[in-house]
């Protein structure tokens, strides 16, 4: 944190009427959220609710078909150095011939640009990141030789090495062991105490209550966003997880078959 006073006033992330479509099929409708700094936010919702889609759109990996996203008041693609992304770990090939350290150093590549090599400072940062996730003993191990939880910790260390202000994590708690789970929880709290903002896609309702400050409840559109105790109401959860939104998802299916024009007419 360079200047905590200025960043505590600005809004970290703001979306307005955000609509994202995959292959012309909308998976996220008119989303408005605005997130203040130093928050630990859980993104929850049933399968196919658009949780990962939201994160990818914020990262600029998917183009919104409507609305806008601002990070620290600027366009999201211009703020890449201030945002770190932790993808789902099953999205990569873990037989790839690199070591744990190699992967964590990749977190520095965004700062290094295309041609610069990582220097001593980058290595120190990477080592520090590994230490925070208790992975230093594994630094020179080839990544195929890790358990699921250890793989997840490598991804977290890579994100830490980016030294960002906003962290987006896609299901970091899935399929990890107890040691990793507690490491992640400690890490999230540590980041928050440094004034960083963290968005975590999560699918386990009971633990969500203890992990997060606030929740974004999604099911194709925003069901609720606010402090955990306000969002954790049966009626809201019912609306997110219960079958009451079948009509909207049917609409989504129907518009998927038709063209974009139909969709814009509906909006």
């Amino acid at each position: 944190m360079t200047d905590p006073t200025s960043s505590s006033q600005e809004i970290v992330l703001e979306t307005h009427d955000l609509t994202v479509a995959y292959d012309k099929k909308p998976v996220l409708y008119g989303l408005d959220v605005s997130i203040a700094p130093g928050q630990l936010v859980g993104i929850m919702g049933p399968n196919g609710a658009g949780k990962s889609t939201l994160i990818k759109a914020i990262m600029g990996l998917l183009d919104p078909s409507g609305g806008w996203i601002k990070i620290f008041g600027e366009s999201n693609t211009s703020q890449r150095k201030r945002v770190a992304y932790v993808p789902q770990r099953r999205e990569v090939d873990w037989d790839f011939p690199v070591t744990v350290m190699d992967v964590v150093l990749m977190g520095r590549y965004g700062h290094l640009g295309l041609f610069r090599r990582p220097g001593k400072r980058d290595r120190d940062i990477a080592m520090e990141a590994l230490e925070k996730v208790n992975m230093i003993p594994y630094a020179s191990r080839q990544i195929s030789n890790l358990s699921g939880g250890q793989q997840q910790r490598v991804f977290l260390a890579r994100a830490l090495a980016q030294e960002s202000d906003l962290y987006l994590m896609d299901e970091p708690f899935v399929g990890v062991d107890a040691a990793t789970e507690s490491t992640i929880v400690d890490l999230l709290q540590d980041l928050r105490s440094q004034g960083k903002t963290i968005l975590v896609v999560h699918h386990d309702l009971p633990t969500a209550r203890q992990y997060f400050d606030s929740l974004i409840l999604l099911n194709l559109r925003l069901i609720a966003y606010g402090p955990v105790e306000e969002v954790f109401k049966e009626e809201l959860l019912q609306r997110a997880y219960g079958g009451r939104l079948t009509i909207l998802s049917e609409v989504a299916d129907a518009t998927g078959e038709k063209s974009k024009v139909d969709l814009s007419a509906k909006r």
Partner: protein
Amino acid sequence: MTPKFRHSPPFLALLIFMFAMPSEAHAAKISELVEVDLGDQFVRFFSLQDAAIRHILLGCLFMGINFGLLGSFVVVRRMALVGDTLSHAVLPGVAVGFLFTMSKEPWAILLGATMAGLLGAATVSWIQRSTRLKQDAALGMVLASFFAVGICLIKMIERIPSVNRSGLDHFFYGQAAALGRADLWMMGGTAVLSTIIVVLLYRPLLATSFDQVFARSIGLPERMLFHLLMLLLALAIVVALQAVGALMVSAMLITPATTAFLLTKRMHVMLCLATGLAIAAGMLGAFLSFVGEGLVSHTLPTGPSMALCAGGFFLLAFLFSPHHGLVSRYRRHLSQTRQITVENTLKAIYRAMESDRFKEEGIAVRRLAGDARETFEETMKRLRLLVRDGLATFASARGEVIYLTPEGLQHASRVVRNHRLWELYLTNEADYDADHVHADAEKVEHILGEDQVMELERYLDYPEQDPHGKRIPSLRDTQRLPLRDLAVKEEEVEP
């Protein structure tokens, strides 16, 4: 960043063996057929006296650099089929280039073939985007149809009278001797270009190959780098076409890289190894075809013999690679006493972890030595066996600490399970006293087979605890990562 080989001596020996052996082995076989001394032939071929042979070897060098570097990226990106398709898709371009100048003009052929290759690649991604077909189907289709067009065009050219069409079949099977000065310039240029790009852009290429989505998220020009790689690949394939032939190009692109993949765990080492292997396979292949000329057939194409050499190297690595080679695995399996030492060491680590209730992942070597009442060096010697088998790794933090790999933990749970089940069996069914069963179980734990263990478990009605009150790791623990479950269950067992 020096590459660390955990077993440098055997590894180096293998490399030397790989480079030294083929000349001898082939000498033994072919000398029966050849009247001329093969040694003389070898010297003549590799002493660079002959200008034509110099051309061939230079061509192999350039081709090896291209295919070693680009092939490695192709393999780790799981794009082997893309390489194969590209190498077939360039053929119509060769024919068009020829038709345009009505001679084997290298520049026209380079241009035509590269265009055809890129058109093929574009067709594949277009099919993928506009239909529900997956990549493999699109690749297969493009490969076959482009190649078919190429064959038809070349057959047409062969029927045109008054055209010097000699050497067109080299584009199918390869003939390194047909390489001209201009061909070599193009090969050399491509090799220099590939080297510069891979060296300069090594890190971005590595990051985009490992995790495309992440690479894009940090602002690396992932698409641009991918297209650069494809362009280089198309160029490398086209310039190598005459030497290897469209049918064998993909073998030279993929095989050295896959061989290198088996031999190392670091990308930069893989790049160097693959390059060395591709150069060696090319040169040896060219030599074999040179020697075999007039014996097997009057013109032996170089493509197949190069591909055979590359395949031979792969076979050697597959059999003898220090970690995963069949032979080394078999030898490890054979040494029974070593296996018992390994399993007892695993068991000691498991027990230490168990007494910590699986809260710590690493165990200090000093502590293990204390538990076993032996010297630090003796314990280290035993632990090194585990590391060599990929069951654990060392790290030093306030003294040496050993960390089990997932495989190591599984293996350890299996041994402990066998031990405790057998103890329980002896006390329950054979009326042994609880303090008499340990020694017997120490022997039996190593020889119980999976079926016997399962039967034992069924017979004992799936017990949870051994006679001493310790938890028996379950079958599930031995099959997948148990740390979390063990920690949880350990709490339950404790009163």
